[in-house]
């Protein structure tokens, strides 16, 4: 118990003095997950809107695939990207394995189905009515679709925040494709695993606290959008 308390105190000290190692890990984590969520959003929102606006019968097969991928274990995503990027893999020549780019690709693979799936659900809820209203007011296909996305923005924001929460907390995929190389591909979750194994609990606890804080911020945002969504513009 005293070890835990000491660890917490030391963790706070590292956070307060902005320990360079801790800061480097946190910034890399945010950069990797931030880039991944941007690409995941760029892919997931249009695809989700497209599938959500099509009749369910026509997209049932694709929806099932997307919803299955939403629950994909991170280690499986990591394994797939590893096989693609490894020297013998089809994209091995790019030399991306054990780089932050590989980690971004793996996290895109994890976040994009979540964003797509939740966007499908959000758009489907009222998409048909919105499209019809927009059409009756003279909107063409592009404006009508854009209106649906705008009207479903709370659900879409929720999907992006959920996706971001998932990838910042995952460890399996980034561990496999990033290799947890110090100063290069070491992110919060992989560092926690390593430091715990090495018995350096203070850094592990410090990173854990930052992850918890990040999770709190993400979930507060999600809560605000979903609960207060009807009242705030």
């Amino acid at each position, binding site marked *: 118990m005293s070890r835990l308390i000491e660890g917490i105190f030391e963790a706070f000290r590292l956070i307060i003095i902005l320990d360079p190692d801790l800061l480097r890990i946190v910034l890399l984590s945010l950069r990797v997950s931030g880039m991944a969520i941007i690409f995941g959003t760029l892919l997931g929102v249009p695809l989700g809107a497209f599938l959500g606006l099509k009749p369910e019968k026509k997209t049932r097969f694709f929806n099932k695939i997307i919803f299955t991928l939403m629950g994909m274990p991170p280690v499986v995503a990591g394994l797939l990207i590893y096989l693609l990027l490894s020297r013998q893999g089809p994209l091995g020549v790019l030399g991306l394995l054990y780089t932050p780019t590989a980690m971004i690709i793996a996290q895109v693979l994890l976040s994009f189905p979540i964003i797509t799936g939740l966007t499908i659900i959000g758009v489907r809820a009222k998409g048909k009515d919105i499209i019809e209203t927009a059409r*009756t007011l003279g909107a063409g296909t592009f404006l009508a679709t854009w209106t649906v996305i705008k*009207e479903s923005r709370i659900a879409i924001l929720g999907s992006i925040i959920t996706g971001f929460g998932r990838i910042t907390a995952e460890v399996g995929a980034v561990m496999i494709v990033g290799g947890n190389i110090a100063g290069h591909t070491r992110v919060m979750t992989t560092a926690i695993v390593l430091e715990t194994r090495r018995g350096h609990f203070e850094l592990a606890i410090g990173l854990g606290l930052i992850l918890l804080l990040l999770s709190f911020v993400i979930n507060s945002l999600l809560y605000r959008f979903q609960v207060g969504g009807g009242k705030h513009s």
Partner: protein
Amino acid sequence: MLHIERLTLEKGIVYGVIGPSGAGKSTLLRIINLLTPPDSGLISFHGRSVPTNGVSRLDLQQKMTMVFQKPLLFKASVRENVAYGLKARGYSRADINRRVDSLLEQVGMNHLAERRADLLSGGEAQRVAVARAVAFEPELLLLDEPTANLDPANVELIENMVIQMHRSRTMTTVLVTHNIFQARRIADQVIFLNQGQIVEMGDKNQIFYAPGDEKTRAYIEGRMVY
């Protein structure tokens, strides 16, 4: 299921479509508004058949509009909602502001211009929906039970809006209503629809005071129609 052999709508007339539930009144409006394609047959506008898609179809769709029984207002201000159709047609900002201000004053919603439209009461929402629909001066206005579930004050307000707008613009209006008194107050011509077929169509005085069909008479007298 609708079985309509021929229906011609003349410019500048207010048509009241009456009939029991399930008669096909709303379906008729959706077909006219090109939201639901007919299984067979032809729709023409100004004597030209409606194209299945493309720019010319959009051009035609922009000449008409529809107000639903439960209007869907966008999660934006009242002003932005009324401006939507004008923006879709590429009106200038100055023109949009002028038209929106004038319409909001007409419907008594000036003071709520910046309010979130999706948070308005039923009556206010329907007034915004009607203002939004007529903002771009459509040639054809389709109203699907616009006053169902509204209190008498809002019913009167919306009816007056339709009558006034009709007087000031050369617009054709098709009003679907369960309320035969409303049809009598607003419409010039009345169409009685039953089981997907037009039973009778004609001048409102003829339909209401000297109906030619026994089913029309029964419906107007409030008896069951089979």
